[in-house]
């Protein structure tokens, strides 16, 4: 089926690209509006805008980069490519979330001296010295 899409694309109007482009613009503007134009809590904003980012990445991969495309009939390059991207995403998430978690937990948390406090607005951590976790 991936082969077919590569083949049928030879002629005609590039609808797939146009749809991808319009969607990417819409998602971008929507993310901007969620971030700056709404009163949602920071957590929700982050969840939504990162959700959009991953959605848009998937859009690029599928609509523009033909990630599922097989180089030849019956080949499994498409599956290798998808597996590769998915494992990349796994490693990326481990690196980013893992680093942020490890470097902000426990002792490291109290390592900052004069930076303004921006996260943890719940008030239970009045003292930077005695975090309970």
């Amino acid at each position, binding site marked *: 089926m991936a082969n077919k899409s590569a083949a049928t694309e030879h002629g005609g109007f590039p609808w797939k690209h146009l749809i991808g482009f319009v969607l990417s613009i819409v998602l971008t503007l929507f993310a901007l509006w969620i971030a700056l134009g709404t009163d949602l809590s920071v957590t929700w904003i982050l969840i939504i805008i990162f959700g959009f980012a991953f959605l848009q990445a998937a859009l690029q991969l599928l609509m523009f980069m033909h990630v599922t495309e097989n180089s030849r009939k019956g080949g499994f390059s498409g599956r290798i490519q998808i597996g590769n991207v998915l*494992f990349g995403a796994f490693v990326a998430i*481990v*690196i980013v979330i893992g680093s942020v978690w490890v470097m902000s*937990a426990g*002792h490291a948390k109290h390592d900052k001296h004069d930076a303004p406090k921006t996260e943890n607005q719940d008030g239970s951590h009045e003292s930077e010295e005695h975090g309970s976790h």
Partner: protein
Amino acid sequence: MKWDEFFVTGDPLIYGADVSIALTTAGILFYLTYFKKWKWLWTEWLTTVDHKKLGIMYIVSAVLMLFRGGVDALLMRTQLAVPEAKFLDSQHYNEIFTTHGTIMIIFMAMPFLIGLINVVVPLQIGARDVAYPYLNAVSFWTFFIGAMLFNISFIIGGSPSAGWTSYMPLASNEMSPGPGQNYYLLGLQIAGIGTLLTGINFLVTILKMRAPGMTLFRMPMFTWSSLVTMVIIIFAFPILTVALALMTFDRLFGSHFFTLQGEGMDMLWANLFWLWGHPEVYIVILPAFGMFSEIISTFSRKTLFGYKAMIWSMLLIAGYSFLVWVHHFFTMGSGAVVNSVFSITTMAIGIPTGVKIFNWLFTMYRGKIEFATPMLWSLGFIVNFVIGGVTGVMLAMAAADYQYHNTYFLVSHFHYVLIAGTVFACFAGLVYWYPKMFGYKLNERIGKWVFWLFTIGFNICFFPQYFLGLDGMPRRVYTYSEESGWGPLNMVSTIGGFMMGVAFLILVYNMYYSFRYAKRETHGDAWNGRTLEWSTPSAMPPFYNFAKIPVVKSLDHFWRQKQEGKVEKLTIKDIKPIHMPSNSGVPFIMASFFFIAGFGMVFEWMWMGALGLIGVFGTLIYRSFEYDDGYYVSEEEIIKTEKISN
């Protein structure tokens, strides 16, 4: 900068090294000129894209680096043999443990394994070369140049001295001024490019270049372990690339990633380093597991027990290896939750490794075991590696780790896994595939002496260190007091270290002895092997490997053919022209530009760094405009090479 700052001066040991380097270089230049070998060197080696030759060059470089790293180790052991020794001062000692660790991991273990992978894997999958032969040469030369750049530090500019882990702020400009630490950053950076390219190259090779009929689950175990290793390389090495680049920015361009000023985080370096560093551990151990699997299966004359279980456990490790890195710095104090999580993942990753030990034991069970040298190394591995593994599980417990951390207990643990795992595998693989590379075996009798001397020396050297560690001796100290009571065990350890050194010399002598006296192999199947690399008619495969690409019908296809008496003979009808890639001098030239760029940046001569980088881009552009589709080997040449007489 003055010349007396440029060259390292004042230490008789280093003057000695200067003299021996000058003499060796002069000797090589004389040999090449006198015997008119320059052209041979250029056409046969410097421009080659043949995976077998590149593999041999990797291995030769690795053996040289093993010598360098080994000398470092013996200097350290000499200094530590007795309390309050004056053999090395503290700075010199720091430099030596830094270069020892860096060289052994990056410039010895990895190229040794990658060299064997280069030689063996294309043959094992029935391919004529790798997917990107040109890129393979780029990989080798960038590795080689990176290694050379790192190695000249001890005579030009001074060695790094912040440990192979280069923790900040010790590695910062304030604590480690001068070019030493820059050598570490640039040498590893350049070599890392080569490693990443190798990862991509061999992943695609294994996935796409297999002989017809060789499905994924018919691949030899060494090929499987290489495949998984390449996946880990591809996703782990970019982390090191970034970490090194960030530290380079800190040192050269005044950024504040890991500095104490500007609210940088020194421990973020440790975090990034080990995000790469733990996967790196599996990069150097998985190919070793693969080799032992091949060797144990061959010399037990049995199919590997639990073939699929082994594959799944390795695939599991590929993912898991990215989830345990914090156990290298439990003592940073990330709190109970973080430490508990990583404690658990660390113990869990021991399970798929433990599974493999049983695979090997059950492969031998009821087998007709032949105690050839490679098999001895494999047996030695099982016993000693288990000691390293068990102490690793002890270290995995975060609470207990606070006791072991930074002691000789840890030093002993990782030498038990890296030497008994990786180094034993390198020796085993070298002996096992030596006839494939050179057409004759290493002498078995001398080889067994090497094995026993090295293994016994290894245990004498490192077993006492567990007790020194439990007794509180910290790692990386250049001396200790008489009252500490650590003297006797350290002396024992030093004796063991020198036994390993002697064993290495005998191994090198064996190469010479076998070159002179060993019986030349008359066919390709030196050990009664099971996999395709043994199926070539001649002992050393021709440059195109297979005149006719084999068609594979099962796991251990060649073995099965032999059992059924159906080994195919090549006939004149099978011969068709073979397409091969052309040699190219560009990779060597590109790597030379990398050397110029790296050297310039080490001394912070930015004009030189820029010049080198322009050269690198120039070679990239040149290559992009070059349309070389390779050439065809004619039927007559193949018939002549294969000695077919109808």
